[in-house]
């Protein structure tokens, strides 16, 4: 009797949770669905109002966007890929190296450095932006990708993730063995430690790439030449331009261009990303 009433209870609760989860799913995906539908519609069609079904104008919109004189979309895509790829590469490689320094060696400043790096983790880039831009102007690095890429070498959050991961996967005995075999320290890092860190590097490379791909604040201050601008800056220019003059199909296609690469990569790798997040979460 008791068991059956309890069983019913669980069943109702399960139904409720599924209903809520479906609503939440719709709430998350609705906007992107409308975006994809609208990017397949022509400007004339779009002015008529909302439509739940896609139209056949997608290729025309892509074409007009690629040949648009106002939006340098191809150079924007190229710039975004270059900046994000190098950021991901440098950030993961050097953060692993920094974590390796703290993990594999005993030295006087070890504890201090570890605490220090964790301490600066929360400093927002915005609060140093003023001095940063002044310095970049003095170094003649405005409109260069260097101020956007090189700072990724010092990424405390990536460092912290790598350090946590090393503790569970990189035994010091292994490094000891490599030394006995006569491998140099730099070679041990590159050929023994780095391959073992591949799963962690993959997760952090994705996050670094996405973070840089989406970044708007700093690039907007550094990149002012049209042919140097990255996608988020182009989106902002789109917003500040006389909006009513634009072909709306083109605007929606532009937004699709900016977010679709990330969505595709995420859907392919989502299993690793979501579980990787949980790993960091338990430890953080």
């Amino acid at each position, binding site marked *: 009797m008791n068991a059956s009433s309890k069983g019913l209870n669980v069943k109702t609760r399960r139904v409720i949770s599924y209903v*809520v989860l479906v609503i939440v799913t719709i*709430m998350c995906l609705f*906007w992107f669905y409308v975006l994809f539908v609208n990017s397949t519609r022509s400007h004339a069609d779009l002015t008529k109002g909302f439509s739940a079904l896609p139209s056949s104008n997608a290729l025309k919109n892509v074409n007009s966007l690629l040949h648009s004189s106002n939006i340098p979309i191809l150079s924007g895509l190229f710039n975004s890929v270059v900046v994000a790829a190098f950021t991901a590469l440098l950030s993961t490689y050097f953060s692993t190296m920094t974590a390796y320094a703290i993990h594999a060696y*005993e030295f006087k400043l070890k504890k201090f450095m570890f605490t220090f790096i964790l301490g600066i983790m929360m400093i927002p880039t915005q*609060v140093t932006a003023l*001095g940063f831009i002044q310095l970049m102007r003095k170094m003649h690095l405005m409109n260069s990708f260097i101020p956007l890429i090189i700072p990724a070498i010092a990424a405390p959050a990536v460092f912290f993730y790598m350090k946590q991961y090393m503790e569970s996967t990189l035994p010091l005995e292994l490094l000891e063995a490599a*030394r006995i075999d006569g491998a140099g320290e730099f070679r041990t890092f590159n050929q023994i430690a780095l391959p073992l860190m591949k799963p962690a590097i993959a997760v952090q490379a994705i996050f670094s790439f996405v973070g840089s791909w989406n970044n708007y604040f700093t690039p907007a201050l550094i990149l002012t030449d049209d042919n140097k601008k990255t996608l988020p800056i182009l989106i902002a220019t789109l*917003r500040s331009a006389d909006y009513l003059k634009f072909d709306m199909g083109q605007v929606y296609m532009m937004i699709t261009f900016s977010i679709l690469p990330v*969505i595709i990569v*995420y859907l392919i790798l989502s299993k690793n990303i979501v579980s990787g997040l949980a790993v960091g979460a338990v430890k953080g």
Partner: protein
Amino acid sequence: MAKKKSGTVLRYNRWGYIFLIPFVVVFIIFQLIPLISTIYNSFFEHYFKNGLTEVGPTFIGIQNYATLFSSGDLPKYLGNTMIMWIIGFIPQILLSLLLGAWFSDPSLRLKHQQFFKTVIYLPNLIMASAFAMLFFTLFSDGGPINSLLMQLGILSEPYKFLSHAGSARSLVGFMNFLMWFGNTTILLLAGMLGIDTSLYEAAEVDGATSTQVFFKITLPLLRPILVYVMVTSLIGGLQMYDVPQILTNGQGNPARTTMTLIMYLNKHLYSKNYGLGGALSVILFIVTGILSVIVFRMNQASEK
């Protein structure tokens, strides 16, 4: 032999410093020097009149800080930022707690958890500026949302979402909620899965309902993670920029009610008002610094 060994160990350990060089050098050049020069700038009057004539730099002590507070701009924009953060944070924490509790409840045996987690985390990875541009077009006066609501007969004429303080702030808050609740759910879920299951079994034996279990066991044990989530979200909230900037084209419309602190800072950076911009940066640095110390202490405590 022994002597040789300790010598080599010392030689090895020198590599600890060598491997730290890239991090330290990059940190000093791209973060420390800019930070120091930002602080230095905050004590000088230095700006460009009408964008052309350079004024200063003249040392004026803490005059810039006084100006920020007395002009009323700083309190106003801090207020805006906090209001929009709260609008996003409250539904975020409630929904995350609910979803976390369901995902971690073994008696519910929810299927397709991976799918739902993937979906709720998705908005977090979307380019905030593109997302804001999308919302701007969707919620514009003649946009799809208005036409949908009119087709459904909910509205008789378009509602100007971006012309009312309440709806504009709610849109920003809603977007922040949408972008961050998946992340918060996964954090809280990890915490909930870490709770000793024997506590739940004991409660079940005692005949506790799932609501009682949630409020009497899960929530109290989750307190440290909740505080962590709240403080890190607050730090993130203070940095709110991309969404309101793009949504309102940097104007903070209507009547600067959606202007955040970082949008204000950005204005000074563009107009090259180094003095006021510097002072504002320093204030933000101190506030996030205090909040970070809280997070840092909590992490230290949880490691022990």
